[in-house]
């Protein structure tokens, strides 16, 4: 990819980041929601600890685990909604003639939004988790979670792009999104570390990208050493590649079947 091409898509990211910076209401809403969820779960984990469940070292690390998984998930902008609307309205047709790839432009736009959301939500995660637990994980753990979590959020953004492209065939991608979201919830270990799920769920999760995107980066704060940074990096590279190939294939298939009516 040439420097000119990179600059072109960087411009898409810059524009969307600037817009996101100006229209912060949705972001503030997400931050408030994030704080509430962490509050609810810190209370839940305290109740679980009272009930004598042998979870991680203590409930505090589980609150930080949730803060990390939610940060990764909430940072990824739901770009599938915009893509779905563009496809339903037919606006996508005008974009096909532009001297920029529709898929890369949408991804760059999503990345710009992610770049604005991640720091705000990360700060919310840190402050709320600290407020609810009065404890922070070791700095070395946070230094692993932050970069790997950001890359995971980027891959999730690309997956949202793929879900949005399904609108070429389905019109309404909401049902696919719901199921995808809940698979992320369970197989990704969003609220509960995967080790606490039955063995068959853990085995099924291993064949999906979800654990590499959520549980693996977040489990670093649990201090269980379940995954090394090297293995985490390898898994993220593999799933990034698979996602890129799948999204690009879907778009080629979709464009080859599009019927454009003039007028």
């Amino acid at each position: 990819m040439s420097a000119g091409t990179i600059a072109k898509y960087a411009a898409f990211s810059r524009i969307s980041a600037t817009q996101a910076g100006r229209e912060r209401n949705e972001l503030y809403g997400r931050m408030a929601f994030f704080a509430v969820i962490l509050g609810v779960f810190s209370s839940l984990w305290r109740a679980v600890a009272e009930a004598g469940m042998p979870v991680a070292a203590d409930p505090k690390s589980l609150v930080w685990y949730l803060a990390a998984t939610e940060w990764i998930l909430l940072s990824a902008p739901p770009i599938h909604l915009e893509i779905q609307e563009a496809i339903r309205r037919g606006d996508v047709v005008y974009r096909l003639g532009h001297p920029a790839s529709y898929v890369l432009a949408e991804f760059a736009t999503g990345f710009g939004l992610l770049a604005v959301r991640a720091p705000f939500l990360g700060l919310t995660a840190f402050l709320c988790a600290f407020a609810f637990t009065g404890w922070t994980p070791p700095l070395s753990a946070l230094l692993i979670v932050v970069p790997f979590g950001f890359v995971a959020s980027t891959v999730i953004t690309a997956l949202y792009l793929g879900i949005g492209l399904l609108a070429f065939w389905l019109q309404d991608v909401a049902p696919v999104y719901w199921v995808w979201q809940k698979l992320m919830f369970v197989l990704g270990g969003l609220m509960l570390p995967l080790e606490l799920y039955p063995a068959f769920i853990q085995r099924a999760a291993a064949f999906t990208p979800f654990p590499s995107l959520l549980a693996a980066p977040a489990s670093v704060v649990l201090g269980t050493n379940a995954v090394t940074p090297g293995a985490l990096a390898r898994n993220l590279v593999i799933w990034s590649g698979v996602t890129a190939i799948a999204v690009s294939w879907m778009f080629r298939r979709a464009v080859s079947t599009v019927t454009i009516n003039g007028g």
Partner: protein
Amino acid sequence: MVADNVSFTRALVATNFKATVALRGAFVIQVVFMALNNFTFFIFWWALMQHVTTLRGWQLGDIQMLFGMVAAAFGLTVTVAGGVRHLGRFIEDGDLDTLLTQPKPVLVNALGLRSQPSGFGDLVSGLIFIVWSGQISWSRLPIVVVVIAASAVIFVACGTVFFSLAFWLGRVETVATQLWELLVTFSLYPEPLFGGTLRLLLFTVLPAGFVGYLPVRILRAPSLANVTILMFVATGYLCLAVLIFNRGLRRYGSGSRFTTFG
């Protein structure tokens, strides 16, 4: 007057239902996927409760009942009064103009404008959760129906209040949606997790307590006193919502445009 409004509401619901099921494939997909969505969410509780038998006195069956109760009430709300979540946009965009010219109550008309097919999935899965909890006998079916209806009325009333803020504050879509989601979120977690000021808020400003906790208490151990309280509260919130909407309607600025709803 009241009978006229009831008959209008019934006709509105029937028309919406016909419109919703007209696209049969899309309808079935939305219903099935929403039900799947709810069952997948519940795997979290199922996995957690494999490790602990009770959470401050709540067992898996109680959580199933709470989840089922809220899902059914939410489903009923978005099926019958799906417009509630769009009220803010109707107000901001001047979409109430076409309703103001009609000889029927604006609020009822607006609420009935957007029936969500996925609501049937919530309703059905909610009922399955309630039955699955193993705590309800067939003799309690009338109480189940009554508490689900009362809970749905509170959902509608809260949504109306949250989204009617647009009359005074303008663009409140995001804030109102967040309040609505907070109400749903809090109502899905067991009551004993929350205490102090938060508990007070959950029985007043954000009445998750009346949407989920009190109905579950009634279903576990029916009592006339609790049913009366729930009815009284549902009526109170509804009256408040109608009052606020009608007050707001006086401030409504016409969009001066033609819109077709369908």
